């Protein structure tokens, strides 16, 4: 569109090369755009392909409903339910930690802070997201495990709560930045209108801005949840990894991610245990994919709502 139509034959050669270059660049950009989708599809296919043996020999339903996880016994027992429940427990605790803190912080940054404070806080939060999870894990081992043991007078500090608290802290940056975006996207007229009706800033925030941004905040929570459920290193170090059906969050749990990380190194490639770990990965992939999909749909709805 930007290239003018050719007027003279003399410029034809140059235009042809330019056109060719353009076509190449366009192809590359197309390819890059499709790359994400291709990679995602390839991951899904790869997971399914590798978990085929597990589904065939151990049985999908048996794995999903079994409660005994003894993969190295002979014959191995591959009951994934404790792992799934363990992941959900840890993630649940993480949500309890990250949602109130994250949303409150987003409200403060978006509605109440000055420009300088806002910029400083945003960069600090970005930095928080950049801290490697093993560092969070180390701090958790040194500080949180003894703390949880004493605070709740437990037999051991390696529990779902310990892992969940650290995961919650790790998810806070995700929740803050996406919630803040959602609040920022609420049109200024709404706030002004509310103020014109005599509402204070607090009233405006709680009765107008927050409800208006609710679906975006929901999406933020979902993405934070996705981050928490997929996190590996910190939970491996903090939850004790006992593959038992936990009665409460104050017990040790084994998560899906921790199981894959701890056991993948040791399995015989192509063996049944190897395949079962891929099946665990497939379950995890399905869960996170679902979470992200829901979050995306909700976000899209919010965008449409404020577009007009």
């Amino acid at each position, binding site marked *: 569109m930007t290239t003018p139509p050719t007027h003279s034959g003399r410029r034809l050669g140059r235009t042809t090369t330019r056109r060719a270059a353009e076509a190449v660049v366009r192809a590359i950009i197309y390819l890059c755009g499709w790359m994400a989708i291709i990679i995602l599809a390839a991951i899904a296919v790869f997971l399914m392909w590798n978990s085929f043996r597990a589904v065939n020999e151990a049985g999908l339903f048996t794995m999903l409903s079994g409660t*005994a*996880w003894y993969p*190295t016994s002979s014959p191995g027992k591959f009951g994934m339910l*404790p792992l799934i429940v363990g992941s959900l427990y840890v993630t649940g605790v993480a949500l309890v930690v990250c949602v109130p803190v994250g949303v409150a912080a987003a409200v403060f940054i978006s509605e109440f802070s000055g420009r300088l404070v806002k910029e400083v806080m945003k960069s600090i939060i970005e930095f928080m997201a950049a801290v490697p999870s093993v560092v969070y894990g180390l701090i958790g081992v040194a500080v949180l*495990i003894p703390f949880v043991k004493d605070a709740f007078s437990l*037999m*051991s500090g390696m529990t779902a709560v310990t892992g969940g608290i650290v995961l919650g802290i790790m998810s806070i940056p995700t929740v803050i930045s996406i919630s803040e975006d959602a609040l920022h996207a609420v049109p200024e007229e709404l706030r002004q209108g509310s103020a014109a009706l005599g509402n204070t800033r607090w009233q405006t925030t709680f009765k107008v801005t927050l409800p208006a941004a609710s679906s975006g905040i929901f999406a933020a929570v979902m993405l934070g949840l996705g981050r928490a459920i997929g996190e590996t290193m910190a939970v491996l*170090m903090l939850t004790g990894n006992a593959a038992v059906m936990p009665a409460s969050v104050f017990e040790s749990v084994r998560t899906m991610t921790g199981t894959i990380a701890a056991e993948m190194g040791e399995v015989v490639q192509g063996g049944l245990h190897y395949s079962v770990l891929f099946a665990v990965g497939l379950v995890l992939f399905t869960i996170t994919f679902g979470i992200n999909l829901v979050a995306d749909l909700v976000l899209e709805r919010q965008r449409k709502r404020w577009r007009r």
Partner: protein
Amino acid sequence: MNLKKLVAPGLAMLLLMSTVAFAGCAAEEPVTETPAETPAEEPAAELEGTIDVQGSDTMLNIGTAWSEAFMDENPMVEVSIQGGGSGTGIAALLNGTVDFAHSSRDIKDEEMADGESKGMNIVEHQVAIDGIAVIVNPANGVEDLTMDQLGQIYRGEITNWKDVGGVDKPIVLLSRDSSSGTYEFFKETVVGEDSEYAAAAKLLPSTQAIVDEVVANDAGIGYIGLGYLTDEVKVVAVDGVKASVPAAADGSYPISRYLYMYSDGEPAGVMAAYLDWILGAEGQQLVVDEGFVPLP
């Protein structure tokens, strides 16, 4: 790069050596094609090459000590040691990414079969003996457990310290995770081959994590290699014998095992030299220094 500078004259030397070797024994036998296989006993030929070793975390300390001492003596040799667990090491050997696998357990039939299907000939070498000590918090009054009691504790049949002569407190079971050779070995000798660890056992990703938790938790019980024993934890005697280097060496301590190195085929050249050195006086002295037990 630096490496290139090292390699070029080295290659030239090898070429020279191989020609000499050819000239020397052309009359007798068909000569091996690879010049690196020059017999190790030739003192004039300086050893060179790289050896990649991966495997057992239990053997990480001793492996590092071996490799450092060996590299000091043979500056042209580079030995790299990685941990990750016995299974990881054997898997890497089967994938052809390492020369030796450190393993604190026998190779499994499944792994052996995998190697055979790839046309490999996996050879086992015993390199040291390890004892597994049962540890508790120093505040714990229990001094002695029988193998039977220990088995019941780890199977989850005994869950309170008062049943084995301690205070009325639930037992916190600590174990390595299933990728560890120590996990397998402890299962075979203590828990029972056909039984399972109690589901409530916490599976920790490293030996150090077990030590840390036992130090911090007065109801904890764990098992670690002799080489990792510290004064912060208390060793529980098993069947009346306290885990120690002499007790593991004379076989009186019940939870002891061989440590292995596996290779694809009989090692040759620099690999053979390294293995011979480990099995020799210097290598076995390091075994003692690192808290393991030398081969008889």
